[in-house]
């Protein structure tokens, strides 16, 4: 505690710079639940009116919030599941098996991870159209998962690398098949990595905006991020900003909850497989 007090100039600077964010957040919270006389700053009443989107149809041509939320959830979940499943197997192969062009694959993983994906969007757009997956949720899931994969595979490979080779050999000597060894002996030891990737890619899918906007602009495949965007665009100057804030809060809530619940697991990515 003593040293914290001596750090007060640093804390003050940090506070000043993050103040706009804090103020905005506070207003987001306050405005979502209150009414105000136009032109004033101080709320004059409590209301759930802005959350009416939860139980009434807004009649703006979209699916309604629950359909969009389901879309978002499916998008995030299936992205997360496919990224995890592929990372789990590909990471093992890259860590353990000596297959041809292994070095090439490792190199391309890093390059892909660092690649600015937005630059690929036109090519992806064309490919999806060709495949008939344009404007479908599946199409966006495939693309999102593919873009998340390099990171996931790389992290999983790191976790597998920390599992001693002898443990697998011991398992084989004990009479277990290679699959049993992987499933029962190796997997439990990389489980923190798996958890981290599951959560991480779920959150990444939940907050994705560019891909759904470009690759699935129709209402069928709308997700919360694009729903919010259309609310602003359609409303123009008459946009109901309080409604917008309420939807934003609704959209951010799962992210905050997941972070709070799983923050320790997420830190594992940076621990590289060491158990705490």
């Amino acid at each position, binding site marked *: 505690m003593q040293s914290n007090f001596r750090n007060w100039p640093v804390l003050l600077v940090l506070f000043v710079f993050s103040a706009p964010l804090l103020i905005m957040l506070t207003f987001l919270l306050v405005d979502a639940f209150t009414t105000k006389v136009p032109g004033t700053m101080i709320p004059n009443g409590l209301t759930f009116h802005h959350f009416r989107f939860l139980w009434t149809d807004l009649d703006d041509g979209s699916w309604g919030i629950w359909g969009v939320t389901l879309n978002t959830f499916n998008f995030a979940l299936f992205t997360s599941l496919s990224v995890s499943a592929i990372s789990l197997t590909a990471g093992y192969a890259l860590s353990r098996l000596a297959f041809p062009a292994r070095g090439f694959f490792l190199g391309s993983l890093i390059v892909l991870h660092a690649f600015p994906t937005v630059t690929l969007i036109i090519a992806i757009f064309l490919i999806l159209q060709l495949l008939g997956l344009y404007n479908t949720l599946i199409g966006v899931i495939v693309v999102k998962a593919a873009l998340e994969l390099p990171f996931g595979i790389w992290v999983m490979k790191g976790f597998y690398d920390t599992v001693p080779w002898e443990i697998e050999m*011991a398992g084989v000597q004990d009479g277990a098949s290679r699959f049993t060894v992987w499933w029962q002996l190796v997997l439990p030891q990389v489980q923190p990595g798996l958890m981290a990737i599951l959560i991480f890619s779920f959150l990444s899918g939940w907050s994705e905006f560019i891909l759904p906007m470009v690759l699935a602009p129709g209402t069928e495949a709308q997700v919360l991020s694009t729903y919010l965007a259309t609310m602003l665009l359609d409303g123009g100057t008459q946009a109901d900003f309080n409604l917008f804030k309420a939807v934003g809060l609704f959209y951010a809530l799962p992210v905050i909850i997941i972070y709070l619940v799983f923050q320790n697991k997420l830190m594992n990515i940076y621990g590289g497989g060491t158990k705490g």
Partner: protein
Amino acid sequence: MRISIENFTKTFGDTTVIKDMSLEIRSGEMLALLGPSGCGKSTTLFAICGIHRMNGGRLLFGDKDVTRVSSQKRNVGVVFQNYALYPHMNVFDNIAFPLKVRKETRAEIDRKVQEIANLVHIGELLHRKPAQLSGGQQQRVALARALVREPDILLLDEPLANLDAKLRLEMRSEIRRIQQQTGITAVLVTHDQVEAMSMCDRIAIMDNGKIVQLSSPKEMYEDPTSDFVAGFLGNPPIAFLEGKAAGGGFRLANSEITLPVPSGITIPDHGAAMRFGIRPEFFQPNNGLKLNGKISFVETQGREELYDVMLENGAVLRSIQSQGAGHKLGDEVSWGIAEDRILAFGPDGRRL
């Protein structure tokens, strides 16, 4: 179960690690594979258990050719140098794993795990995780896991290397006890000659992927076939005198001294290079064949004292004597070699 390795060859890429090795391990014996680092001991062990595929040659267990049999089907128990316990399972589950893989019944598994745990004295640790065990306890768990499914063969890769000196001594006799009690054929890889001599029935000394000598510890110590083997066994190590054959005797290098060559040793042609190997216990004050020198090093080893004696030509002999003789650094001494214990080697390192 007898193990026969016939003309075993192993290559990694284009380096040949083992070339044309043949070795027979008798049923029920404990054999040590002893040799310097990188000579191919682990490679040989991994070929026996099937982790490495053999590039040439045959491997037989009893009369059965297992060269192409998979690791899983060879029924060989292995203790790895770092024990390779499964960290997420407790001791019981670790030991039970080979039995569970074989789908034995719950009652059967319980009984066998209890039995083997008692044999290696870890009966009260069954609910701990490997991380909560000491090195010696982990070692016992690894041993129990290797033994629990009653393998035909037990392979140990430097099982004691990670233990402290006292524990190593204890586990040495422990492993030997268990091996004899179960009557299993065992191969112990080690680079510690004391371990090999004290634990095993026979020792195979390896150098550069070849077996240079295979005999019992006593025979290997007293009757080595080459200067490499003589130099590898014994602590403190043997000392060598360089010289050449001259007129039926052994002329020390850079000196006028000629030592008589003991009977029973065939002397090479006049002028050929020769070496005498003399173990520290056979260079003592009251032996017959005297040499003059000066004590150049004294090391107290508790019960005994080790002296280095530099001869007039600069060669050094070692002598180990019991405490209390009172020789000091720099003393001029005239000590003797036990003539019948001299080991003579020819120019190619072979025993004469």
